[in-house]
């Protein structure tokens, strides 16, 4: 009897499990669709190619989710158009951002790793105060610092320099990567997990701290290096305020792509009929970043988890 009961229970349990599994599928698919709709819409808008009956192009937001006609006009326009007096501005913005992102990525990752290593594995007098200060110093809202940073950079000729507008790109890289070292918490959390015994034994073997860092810590730190690199690489693609101030509103040729795209949509542009072109720009920017993210997903997750646990 008890056996029969158990059998029934197992069967009803497995049915219940199937039902709940099915419900989960449905829920996840619905959620997934909700999650993707805005992004799909941007992609669709990028390929939208609708015209007024008399041939005027419609580049505005329209109420139809699916375009009535598709085409590549937004992309070709985007890549060839002159914005702010700069011919073929968009490809330039892409290139500028790429350069800035790569250099920023290298410098920032290096700074973060070096600070995180010190905080995690070295003992010195000012360690605790340094950690406390670095935690709160970044909490000051940045807009006010923007003017100060602008004039400090200007003091060394790295911005607001009409004869050498390209210098402000260096200024921007400096400003982006300078603060990076203070965001060491995630990497430190990761280093904390590396056993101290490893470091100690290396020390007994006569390794210097430098050698320990280079030969023991760094090879183990691949996930966190990739995480940090990913984070600092994507940063410059997203900032649309700071970059404009540092590079200068007049130096459209040296803008980053987010400043450019943001200006397309919100500037007092003579032709505000540019939403679909903006969407095309978004697609061009997002595709490489998303691809990068997808490839490096595993490292990103590791970083996020380390960051969450160690704060």
């Amino acid at each position, binding site marked *: 009897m008890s056996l029969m009961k158990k059998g029934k229970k197992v069967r009803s349990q497995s049915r219940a499990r199937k039902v709940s599994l099915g419900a989960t599928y449905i829920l996840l698919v619905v959620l997934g669709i909700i999650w993707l709709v805005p992004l799909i819409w941007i992609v669709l808008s990028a390929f939208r190619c609708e015209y007024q009956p008399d041939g005027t192009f419609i580049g505005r937001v329209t109420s139809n989710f699916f375009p009535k006609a598709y085409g590549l006009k937004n992309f070709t326009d985007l890549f060839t158009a002159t914005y702010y007096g700069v011919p073929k501005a968009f490809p330039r913005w892409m290139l500028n951002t790429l350069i800035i992102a790569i250099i920023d990525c290298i410098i920032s990752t290096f700074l973060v790793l070096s600070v995180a290593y010190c905080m995690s594995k070295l003992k010195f007098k000012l360690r605790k105060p340094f950690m406390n200060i670095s935690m709160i110093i970044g909490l000051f809202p940045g807009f006010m610092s923007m003017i100060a940073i602008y004039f400090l950079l200007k003091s060394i000729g790295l911005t607001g320099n009409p004869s050498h507008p390209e210098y402000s790109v260096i200024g921007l890289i400096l400003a982006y990567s300078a603060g990076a070292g203070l965001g060491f918490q995630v990497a430190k959390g990761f280093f904390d997990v590396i056993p101290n015994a490893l470091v100690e034994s290396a020390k007994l073997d006569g390794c210097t701290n430098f050698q320990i860092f280079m030969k023991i810590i760094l090879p183990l730190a691949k996930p966190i290096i990739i995480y940090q690199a990913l984070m600092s690489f994507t940063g410059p693609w997203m900032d649309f305020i700071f970059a404009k101030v540092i590079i200068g509103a007049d130096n459209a040729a040296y803008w980053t792509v987010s400043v450019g795209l943001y200006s397309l949509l919100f500037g007092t542009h003579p032709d505000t009929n540019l*939403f679909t072109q903006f969407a095309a720009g978004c697609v061009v920017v997002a595709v490489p970043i998303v691809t990068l993210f997808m490839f490096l997903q595993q490292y990103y997750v590791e970083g996020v988890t380390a960051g969450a646990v160690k704060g």
Partner: protein
Amino acid sequence: MDSALSKAPKNKLNLRDFFEPLRKSLANFGKRFADGSLGTKLSHFIFGAGNFYHKQYIKGAIFLLLQLAILWFMIFCPAVNGTPYGWKALANLSLKNVKEGGEFDPATGHFSAGSDCKLMILFGFVTIAVIIIYFLIWNMNIGSSYKADMDKKIGKKPTTFIEDLRELLDSKFHVLMLTPTCIAAMVFTILPTIFMIALAFTTYNSQDMNDLGTNLFHWNGLQNFSAVFTGEGSLGVEIKNRFLPVLGWTFIWAIFATLTCYFGGIILALLINKKGLKGKKIFRTVFIFTIAVPQFISLLAVRNLLGEYGPFNAMLINAGIIDKAVGFLGLHVGDSENLAKVMVIIVNMWVGVPYTMLMTSGILMNIPTDLYEAARVDGASTLKMFFKITLPYVIFVTTPYLISSFVGNINSFNTIFLLTGGGPTYTGYQAGGTDLLVTWLYKVTIDQGSYNTGAVIGIFTFIITATITLVTYRRSKAYNEEDTFQ
């Protein structure tokens, strides 16, 4: 009385604790001067003299060069935009000795501009930083020479430059590693922050200055802070009537944004990691999209999607759910404030939930399975297991994240700025219905040019976030067990 008595000695002790290191270091200076060699004595006046005395030429040269450079900087006062550094910058810090400027010679076209008060303040602080650095180097150069003296006394050779460099790779490795970040933080974070705090005590408000037809401003003590309560000054009404509502909404937003994303993320992670579910990776990838796409793209997409003539309103109208477009994001004067508030929290979930989902996925897998086995044997329901095992475990592990994401949400500029722009706006005010302190600060400073008022708002924001961070962090397990990781 009793307590007063018992407190008294403690106070004394504290005071002595405070003065002891100071006294010691002063004594140390005296001792070094008295005991040191001729080189060490000379080092008090000429940097690197002691090193030259001990034949440490490179080190000596570096010290000397630094001294000369700083002295040059202090005496000759290089200028940017016509505002000098150096001793003049110190004198300028009072903002007393300012020139209105504007002399114009039509014949030559020469125009002399007036003083730039903001640069006077900024450069004044830079100069103070340089002076502090000067004395640090001074101390270091004496110490360096004195150490060589001591080495000599016990028969050791003074260290060579190469040896010093080598030390940097080992016992002083942290100095090498932290220096770039310290310099960067000093120049790009600390100095600007001090500058910003200073502005809160000035009359630096472009509008007021325009009204007076002047480029000059001056110090005005705590007036900007009292304006928050009295409503005086050019932005007085704004501050008085809008400060508390904005502060309140900032907290409500931070609480809701944090909790919705947090629990939403946990639930989503549980769903995706459900046993027997196929295509986990695909589902996860779908949700990661919103993290990977830059926020100014995804948020502007949503903003336009939800616009008055956007597809979402059109769909609702076609479906007959509404008969007139709804202003979901409060972009229009007169749109519902509460709806806009709810919408930003919902859209924020769209951005934030996947993040928590990713994070908790890893943690969920780490929960010891025997916990569940034991519970199952006891006949606990799935729901009960969730509340008794899963949730406590996850919360326990992710407390630091909760705090940092709460603070992050207080300062969450992008979401509000890109989605609602702070709207719905109220006639006559800068701060709209969904403005957070930080977006309000942006409007007040960047749009409005009221830097002093902005600085006051910024300081309040900072006090709030810094207090929360420090208090909770110091209590957290991570902090207190920090040393055990060493």
